[in-house]
């Protein structure tokens, strides 16, 4: 165990810090969940790409810097230290990108990864259906083979980024006789294909970021299928592992929130309850614990290990930490917590953050499902309903 950064790692940190200082927008961007904010965030992705910071761990040929996971963590720490915006590109770089890296053909890698790294193509996820939420194996949307195309018919929902994104990925039933996890295929599709209708969903906060997608005989070339017909479930589980495990929520995000929470506490200490003070201290402790664990996971992967069902522990931990931190913040704000903009005109980011944090225990597989996975796969308890 060596918990010191090398001189090279320190130099890399200094490089990221200097670039971020020069480039991160001084004012917070408008929320990603509306047209104006989405465009601002995509413009930021292109700025990042101009500095070659799109996704530092990817090989240079795909638009990355070929760096390791420790350097990625350093990058993320500096990104959140600088107050970098949420990543419009997250579905691509953190979820689909690693999936293509693992399962894609050389042609698919060359075709999809570089524009992803450059922020030129923004990706939407399309997993859930009206009848397949936590129970994703209940998917019914069909992809029927017709020559060198699939013809997709069906409906996806809660498709994040889909209101404005360029391309989508999801799993579809290619074998009409199949049940549950079998007969599913992972397919990438252009969201502007004929036959796709997007219906933005207005969310809790009033804005629209995710959408319903209706597929009416949408023709998608077979070369857009990842890892072969019928392999969809395994590929999707790998993507979900990236989502829950390491990439989607790097620790810097929560450490930055914990730091802002400490500052908020200090500004409101006069009327804060002892319980709120302890929650602030706990927030720092949990954000640090999450960071240590992530460094441990990164070291394990760099040594050739993999993330398994323990990704579920991660997802439970960060989502409940994020909610707890924002709950504490709105409690500290007291009466002002309800204001969407404070009297000085500034956006109440804590309120936005609290509302967003309520989605954390739901998306990427609800925490109830994560607790089932933990109990069954890590602890070895019998499956639900087993006799």
């Amino acid at each position, binding site marked *: 165990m060596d918990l010191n950064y090398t001189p090279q790692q320190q130099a890399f940190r200094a490089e990221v810090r200097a670039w971020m200082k020069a480039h991160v927008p001084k004012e917070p961007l408008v929320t990603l969940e509306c047209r104006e904010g989405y465009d601002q965030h995509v413009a930021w992705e292109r700025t990042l790409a101009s500095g070659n910071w799109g996704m530092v761990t990817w090989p240079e040929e795909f638009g990355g810097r070929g760096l390791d996971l420790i350097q990625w963590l350093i990058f993320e720490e500096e990104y959140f230290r600088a107050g970098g915006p949420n990543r419009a590109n997250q579905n691509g770089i953190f979820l689909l990108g690693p999936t293509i890296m693992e399962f894609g053909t050389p042609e698919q890698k060359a075709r999809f990864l570089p524009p992803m790294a450059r922020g030129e193509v923004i990706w939407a996820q399309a997993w859930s259906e009206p009848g397949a939420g936590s129970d994703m194996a209940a998917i019914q949307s069909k992809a029927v083979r017709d020559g060198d195309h699939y013809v997709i018919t069906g409906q996806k929902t809660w498709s994040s980024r889909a209101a404005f994104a360029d391309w989508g990925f999801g799993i579809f039933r290619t074998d009409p006789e199949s049940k549950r996890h079998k007969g599913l295929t992972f397919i990438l599709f252009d969201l502007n294909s004929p036959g796709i209708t997007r219906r933005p969903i207005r969310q809790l906060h009033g804005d629209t970021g995710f959408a319903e997608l209706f597929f009416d005989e949408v023709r998608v070339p077979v070369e857009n299928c990842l890892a072969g017909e019928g392999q969809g479930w395994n590929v999707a589980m790998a993507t979900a592992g990236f989502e829950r495990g390491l990439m989607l929520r790097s620790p810097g995000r929560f450490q930055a929130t914990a730091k802002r929470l400490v500052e908020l506490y200090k500004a409101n200490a006069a009327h804060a309850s002892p319980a709120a003070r302890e929650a*602030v201290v706990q927030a720092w402790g949990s954000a640090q614990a999450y960071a240590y664990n992530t460094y441990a996971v990164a070291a394990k992967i760099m040594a050739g290990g993999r993330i398994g069902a323990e990704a579920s522990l991660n997802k439970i931990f960060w989502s409940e930490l994020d909610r707890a931190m924002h709950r504490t913040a709105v409690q500290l704000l007291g009466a002002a917590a309800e204001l969407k903009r404070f009297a000085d005109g500034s956006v109440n980011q804590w309120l936005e953050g609290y509302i967003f944090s309520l989605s954390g225990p739901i998306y990427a597989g609800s925490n*109830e499902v994560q607790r089932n996975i933990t109990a069954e796969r890590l602890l070895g308890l019998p499956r639900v309903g087993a006799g």
Partner: protein
Amino acid sequence: MDFRFSDDQLTLAESVRDYLAGTHGPEVLRRLDAEGNRDPAIWQGLADMGLTGLLVPEAQGGLGMGLVEAALIAAECGRACLAEPLVDSAFVGVPWLVARGQTDGLDEVVAGTRRIAVPHPINPWLADSEGAALTSVDPLRNLAVAEATEADDLLLNVGALMSAAQLVGLSDAMLSQAVEYAKVRTQFGQPVGAFQGLKHQLASCSVAIEFAKPVVWRAAQALQDGLPSAPVHVSHAKLAASDAAMLTAETAIQVHGAMGYTYEVDLHFWMKRSWALCGAWGDRAFHYHRVEEALLGGAQPIGPEHTFA
């Protein structure tokens, strides 16, 4: 930067785990409980493995290892609910003596013929020490009133770190006992462990334990490296490990149902040791206040770039 144990460290911990699993099962705890709590043969076995000399410098015949290895093995002692005072003597007393340059007689510690119990004002009593006896809730813990005048910070920090390490091992064991029980106890025609009401509680214990462990390992490394921030990390570790242990103990007894409330089920040994160690070497309030003061007072740098500050 490499947040992993070395293969040597893992092999060492595994060998201790296997040894204790083979020689120090629940039946041993019950025998000790009935026959006077301590067994020279068990102690000699630990000495023969080199554990009494783990932190004794090689010049004095020990293994010359560090607090990180000791913390790993303390966790194994917790997992086995070891009754002998190995951790207090060899992993707390010895490094304190070594740090003060008091290395005379450490060869006897290595041989197992001498034990070290160092009082600290934070503990009004001490385990396996001389003095008027007190009765702990933990039937295998021999307490004696201990007077201390010197409030040595290193001693306190090592004691708290090793308590935290034992607590994560104790928590692992309690969770495992609850899981095994939930697999075999059937009600309503199925193992009770198939019910989500139990699964979700046990999964929450797993989350608490797995996110307490890296905090403990980080604290061990910080203390071993002598970082100025080490006391904050030790207190953080004690808090995280105590909270995980209390949650796991309460969940484990609940999962055992009425059986958990009996002396017959093994769980109570682990639960009572956990309760004892949660208060030892600084209780929750003490360690909470140390973290709070460092954070809110500004001594501890915070933010994404300060993960290892």
